């Protein structure tokens, strides 16, 4: 994507969010047609003849397997931070170096902007961008991917080992939206594990292993899909009305410690 079109890409993303869909429910309508094919219109071509029971079982099993892979994780409990499970600040990171803009492009992090501009965009959209104070200032800020979200990247250092050969030591994605309305799911592969942990008093998900996809329920109730960028281990949690995803090469406890230092930027 040529850089000269960055503004156009942002505008298109915002346009996509506002595509005016009808209030109908095509999912319910489709499920109704599948359940009662004999009353459906002729456009349901597949069930010309009765579907054998074995085939129906295979279809149901395939759907169930896909949903199991989507692994919806419901986050229970209070969202008010009262106490923390784990110590805070045991990971202290001193930032040195830069995240090359090329890394942002290579991993489709969005459009590079000054950090202040990312903070301002979040403010204008009605949410506060926060970063883990234990990581110091990020080396790069990117907006627009996912739409409405912000990616902050830190350079690799002794405390933040490089994630693969990405040129990035820590990636924080902040998205307005919550994970506790049945919204967080993960399209796992066989090499992925998920553990329920806590960041402060908030439920969080530690996703380790293969790349995965996170689904967030945004402020309008729509589901937003976002794929892991760097195939690093990922911690996902919600603070207030914002969902954060921290991707790094840190182990679980280090990542949770770092996430616990989340502070709003102003």
């Amino acid at each position, binding site marked *: *994507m*040529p850089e000269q*079109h960055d*503004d*156009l*890409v*942002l*505008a*298109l*993303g*915002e*346009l*996509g*969010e*506002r*595509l*005016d*869909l*009808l209030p*109908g429910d*095509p*999912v*319910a*309508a*489709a*499920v109704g*047609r*599948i*359940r009662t094919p004999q009353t459906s219109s002729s456009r*349901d071509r*597949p*069930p010309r003849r009765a*579907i054998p029971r074995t*085939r129906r079982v*295979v*279809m*149901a099993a*395939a*759907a*169930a*397997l*896909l*949903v199991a892979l*989507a692994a919806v994780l419901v986050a229970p409990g209070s969202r008010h931070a009262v106490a923390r499970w784990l110590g805070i600040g045991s990971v202290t990171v001193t930032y040195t170096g830069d995240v090359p803009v090329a890394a942002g492009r290579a991993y*489709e992090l969005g459009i590079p902007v000054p950090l202040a501009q990312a903070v301002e965009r979040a403010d*204008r*959209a*009605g*949410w506060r961008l926060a970063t883990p104070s234990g990581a110091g200032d990020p080396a790069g800020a990117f907006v627009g*991917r*996912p*739409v409405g979200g912000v990616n902050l990247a830190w350079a690799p250092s002794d405390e933040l080992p490089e994630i693969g050969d990405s040129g990035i030591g820590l990636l924080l994605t902040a998205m307005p939206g919550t994970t506790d309305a049945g919204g967080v*799911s993960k*399209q796992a592969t066989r090499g992925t594990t998920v553990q329920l942990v806590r960041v402060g008093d908030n439920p969080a998900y530690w996703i380790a292993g293969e790349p995965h996809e996170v689904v967030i329920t945004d*402020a309008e109730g*729509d*589901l*937003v*899909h976002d794929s892991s960028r760097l195939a690093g281990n990922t911690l996902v949690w919600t603070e207030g*009305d914002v969902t954060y995803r921290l991707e790094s090469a840190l182990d679980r406890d280090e990542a949770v410690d770092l996430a616990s230092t989340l502070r709003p930027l102003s």
Partner: protein
Amino acid sequence: MDAYASLLRLHEGAARRRALVVCGSAGEADEAAQDGFVKAWYGLAGFRAGAAFRPWLLRIVANEARNRRRSAGRRAGYELRFAEDRASGGAAPSPEAAVLAAHRRRTLGAALAGLPTAQRDVVACRYLVGLDEAETAAVLGLPRGTVKSRAARGLARLRDLLPERIEIGGIGDA
């Protein structure tokens, strides 16, 4: 069946948007999405284990939308409509700002409608629906290189189609 409905809910928004940018009509798009969901169910047993479900589903829905668009022919107009501004936690936009933002959206939507179909498909998948390059390639059945080049050409053409004096930045900021 409940499992399938749950699965569809995860991808419903992307599927409806994908159908809409192909059809250019919200009503036709929902019909196409519905048909696509039904077809996907009957094709589920043939879904390759380990493959990504979303591009597979969106491809089926997009085919349905394309068929509808084709059968509607020239009598059907292509017009994307956009939701009005809604206050989201902050102050509501001023009436003037809302009118300007709506105008910018309509202008960009009209320019998008003016793109050749092949470029519009790629631009819509990548930037309106929010698919990445690999997903777009899978949905459209194109090599990634083609997606990349069509996206670049589509964006350049889109900019040419926009009036020079319109500022596209801040389209949602009114």
